[in-house]
């Protein structure tokens, strides 16, 4: 008999007062008990609507069934057949718009916490599994992947599993792309990213950092080096500025610069070699999700007051309830100003 509770097992989190002063992960993850209980909410639908909502078609009911049986390692194997980055996706995928949006349990009550279960399974594997990843038999074909962000890593993982010899070229000194320079530590700890990349390396993927394709090497040279195909996952590109007065003043950051200083270069740490301005009063211009992440980050750095300038209506933010609720809770305890 399925667990007919209308609500997901809540995600345990750090106490807001504590987490406002640190950069550790906010959500601390399901316990085994919570995972078993949540897995029991899955109805194991025959037509599997959740799978159709997943961009990589993870066999969701199958892995959840294994969780329910307590066979977490087998659950991991099922996920990893379709996804190269389960610990990352379990944390940062917008499941509420994808798999969970299609969940039958969501018609009346909350959907099954698929993302939370995915995360649990990946974390369990990383912590407990002694299974050694082995590189599959090589098929003798070489592929170059440009950029080690989520696209490049996923491509590299899928190809490596099929026997291709994959080399990933990264312009920065660390692999991970937006996972390391953009998404903050408290949403996605960098050791999780590093662990996923280690797993890819065990599959035989080579990672070359400090190589800027187009500058250090060209695509033509990659072909000359024996690569038969090149996948370009170079990222979102240049930030766009608005061309308004004062945007080049000292203390005005693009989102990318602020995030890169804070995340990739760890400027939030007291002894960081890379500086970041710490202001008491902060205005955020723009209204995408990114700005909310900035905001959260600023919170820990500034602690005083925010002003959010945005041209997007507030309801756009409300779609992301998972992150917003936490933010509001803390915001209401401080001097939070939103100018819309």
């Amino acid at each position, binding site marked *: 008999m399925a667990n007919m509770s209308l609500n997901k097992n809540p995600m345990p989190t750090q106490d807001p007062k504590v987490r406002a002063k640190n950069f550790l992960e906010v959500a601390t993850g399901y316990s085994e008990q919570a995972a078993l209980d949540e897995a029991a909410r899955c109805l194991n639908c025959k037509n599997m609507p959740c799978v159709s909502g997943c961009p990589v078609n993870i066999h969701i009911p199958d892995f959840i069934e294994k969780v329910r049986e307590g066979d977490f390692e087998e659950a991991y194997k099922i996920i990893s057949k379709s996804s190269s980055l389960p610990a990352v996706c379990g944390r940062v995928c917008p499941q509420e718009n994808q798999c969970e949006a299609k969940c039958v349990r969501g018609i009346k009550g909350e959907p099954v916490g698929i993302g939370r279960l995915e995360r649990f399974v990946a974390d369990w594997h990383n912590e407990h599994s002694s299974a050694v990843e082995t590189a599959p038999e090589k098929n003798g074909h070489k592929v170059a992947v440009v950029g080690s962000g989520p696209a490049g890593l996923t491509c590299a993982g899928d190809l490596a599993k099929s026997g291709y010899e994959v080399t990933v070229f990264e312009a920065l000194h660390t692999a991970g792309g937006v996972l390391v320079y953009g998404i903050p530590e408290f949403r996605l700890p960098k050791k999780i990213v590093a662990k996923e990349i280690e797993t890819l390396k065990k599959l035989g993927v080579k990672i070359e950092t400090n*190589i800027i394709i187009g500058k250090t090497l060209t695509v033509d040279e990659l072909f000359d080096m024996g690569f038969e195909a090149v996948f370009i996952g170079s990222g979102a590109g240049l930030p766009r*500025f608005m061309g308004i007065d004062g945007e080049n003043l000292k203390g005005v950051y693009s989102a990318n610069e602020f995030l890169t200083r804070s995340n990739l270069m760890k400027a939030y740490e007291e002894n960081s070699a890379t500086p970041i301005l710490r202001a008491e009063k902060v205005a955020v211009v723009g209204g995408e999700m990114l700005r909310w992440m900035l905001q959260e980050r600023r919170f820990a750095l500034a602690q005083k007051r925010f002003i959010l300038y945005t041209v997007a209506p507030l309801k756009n933010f409300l779609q992301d309830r998972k992150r917003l609720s936490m933010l509001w809770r803390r915001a209401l305890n401080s001097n939070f100003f939103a100018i819309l």
Partner: protein
Amino acid sequence: MYKIVSKKELNSTVTMMDIYAPFVAKKAEAGQFIILRVNEDGERMPLTIAGFDREAGTVRIIFQVVGATTTLLNQKNEGEYIEDFAGPLGNPTKTDNLKKVAIVGGGVGCAIALPVAQKLHKLGCEVHSIIGFRNEDLVILEDEFKAASDKLIVMTDDGSKGRRGLVTEPLKELIESGEEYDEVIAIGPLVMMKFVVLTTKPYGVKTTVSMNPVMIDGTGMCGGCRLTVGGKVKFACVDGPDFDGFLVDFDEAIARSNMYKPFEERKREENCNLLNMKVK
């Protein structure tokens, strides 16, 4: 990891290193830059390329010990390694169709003006170099400039070497005396480049400046190195580092370059204290 193949102190505050980085050496051109990190957790620091040897696979950097990162770099010795060395980034200095140029270098900026002078000289262009320093002790690369220039003028602030005064004085005299330059290329402190531009502008001599703002990724991703050029936002890393000096908003660039001054000063102090402790 990238090996320091050779290290030489050019004066009390300026050091030259050749780094083994064959991929970078193969592509490097005068005017481009690299980004390095001395050690893990170090900051990313851009440095304009001061030379390269494609066969040996080495890239030359010349830096002034001014902040925490350059202090750390200077502590490394020949045979040791630095963590990261990526490039070449940015665009090479344009040298096409130049028949006669004036190269104006200031301080450690001379280190990166030299490969430009050498390249132009090799291409058969008439090169007049004006290099300026605070005093005799800080003069670098004089012989190299002499070899790459048809005319060389050395300036010092106090007159202890060459002529006394600023680099803009002989530049103005040369232009006034009828030297017709296709281009003036100025590489040095922001203030110097600003005044070179103010000197050449009345005569309408095209002036190129090499900008070296605060930078992180160096690939166009963060926008930290942005400048206003001709009223538009430009990124030094991907649009430059060379720009038309007449169009650069120098006052803004100077203000932005001071953004982390208090931080830098504090860091340097900490580093010096650490050094002091080691000595004890």
